[in-house]
């Protein structure tokens, strides 16, 4: 035996805190996920593949992933901009903007969903304007994109903000003293420092968007092959008591989530090596 499993410690409460932690974790998270995987194992790889390998399922998975990627990219750019503006500039209303970024975390997704639909439907405030130039937003992929931008909005801004706060002015001064223009400094000195945090936020926003359900289903229109997202397919299968098929799609989505979680961890390890902290 090398290192002991648990080091001796004078701290009290080892049994109690470990007991509560592991019991809750198992009961609430691990056993249910295990039940899904077990269902998948019983169904067999072939069965899973047969369920997933249908035009409608592929279309939904591809749609969820593609629009989530686009929404996360939008949030990557806008989130870095927000973080920069909120940390570096002082202006009236800054506190309100800062607090507003977290609204998508606090506002229930169903509320966001019906609110966005009311705004972007053809008779809504924004939908009306868009319709006048022949642009349909609600009940198209544009609507899904907007809902996914909304739910992913806080991630990049919130991960980048503390990093902007920590940038030392000396670095920028050095760059300026050496003759770099402000734009050059931003591109070659500041953006590289923000990149790891921004990527982490991007991956978090992406993971959130791929699984998002509540804010999307109202505005999506849910037309099979066109605006039907993957989580909705699971709901449809469940309503038909088709548990095997629901489990198969659930496992496919779980695998995508795990892949993204792994990517987030790799990004963090990589950037920790590169700049010493994340």
């Amino acid at each position: 035996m090398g290192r002991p499993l648990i080091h001796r410690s004078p701290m009290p409460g080892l049994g109690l805190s470990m007991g509560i932690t592991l019991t809750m974790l198992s009961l609430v998270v691990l056993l249910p996920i295990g039940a899904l995987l077990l269902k998948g194992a019983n169904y067999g790889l072939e069965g899973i593949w047969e369920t997933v390998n249908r035009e409608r399922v592929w279309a939904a998975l591809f749609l969820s992933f593609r629009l989530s990627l686009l929404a996360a990219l939008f949030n990557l750019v806008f989130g870095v901009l927000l973080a920069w503006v909120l940390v570096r500039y002082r202006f009236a209303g800054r506190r309100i903007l800062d607090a507003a970024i977290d609204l998508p975390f606090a506002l229930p997704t169903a509320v966001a969903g019906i609110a966005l639909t009311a705004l972007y439907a053809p008779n809504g405030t924004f939908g009306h304007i868009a319709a006048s130039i022949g642009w349909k937003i609600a009940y198209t992929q544009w609507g899904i994109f907007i809902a996914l931008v909304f739910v992913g909005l806080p991630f990049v801004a919130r991960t980048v903000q503390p990093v902007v706060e920590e940038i030392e002015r000396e670095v920028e001064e050095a760059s300026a003293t050496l003759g770099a223009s402000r734009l050059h400094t931003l591109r070659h000195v500041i953006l590289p420092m923000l990149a790891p945090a921004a990527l982490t936020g991007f991956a978090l926003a992406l993971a959130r968007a791929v699984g998002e359900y509540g804010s999307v289903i109202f505005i999506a229109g849910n037309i099979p092959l066109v605006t039907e997202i993957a989580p909705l397919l699971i709901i449809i299968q469940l309503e038909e008591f088709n548990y095997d098929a629901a489990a198969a799609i659930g496992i496919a989505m779980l695998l995508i989530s795990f892949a993204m979680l792994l990517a987030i961890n790799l990004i963090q390890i990589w950037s920790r090596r590169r700049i010493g902290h994340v």
Partner: protein
Amino acid sequence: MSDATLQKGTTARFRSATEESPLARRALIGVAFIGLAILVFAPLIAVFAEALADGVSAALRSLANPDALDAIRLTLTIAAISVPLNAAFGIAAAWFITKFDFRGKAFLITLIDLPFSVSPVVAGLCIVLMFGTNSLIGGWLVAQGFPIVFAMPGIILATLFVTFPFVARELIPVMIEQGRAEEEAALTLGASGWRTFWTVTLPNIRWALLYGVLLCNARAMGEFGAVSVVSGKIRGQTATMPTTIEMLYQEYLSVAAFSLAAVLALLALLTLLLKTALEIRHADQLAATHRH
């Protein structure tokens, strides 16, 4: 947000070399304002505008409807049960992780974070497969007269799943930063474990705990995807506020749906207000304000 980086007003006529031109600065602030106005403020205003479309009394009348009242009562009950359970878990997990050294700590933290990257619908599905009538455990429990799925326990489990990391994530960084010295001192002076926790640890982490509980509560009251799957959405029994909003909306009862939505939106605003107040007054004791 530390104000240490705040640049004192630049009185010099020439622009500092570490600042953007005033024009660029104004343009960036403008983009931030317009972007957030369209993305965040407009939907928020839309909720209240739609709720009040037929006047205040129509909105209030729709909230007094028995189905709406049942939904509000159920959502409050769910939050009252799941948030304290989650807080207890968060404290226990943070204590276990920060006060002891053991192998696999990073893996344990990853597992606690796992629910953040699982779709709420998949979370609901997992609970249905585990405790549904078709499953081994679920079938047995139903035979004992204790159904989980399509009943209150299932909604609580789903809520616990999606809010699982909230409190623990907030407490762990704060407790790592505070170290173990104060607790060790209390123990050396003869305080019991519980007394050490109540009089030494808890005062140190109370604001972080409140912060985590606040966010956990907002999510618990607003959860839709996972609850949709496990609750069965039975009116008057398992329909929570968010699922009732969906049903009303699909029945084209716009004012009723948005009135209930407005109640949740007010809750979200209150959450943000308290959260901002905490961030301003107790920034040094929160993980969120100096998270990396």
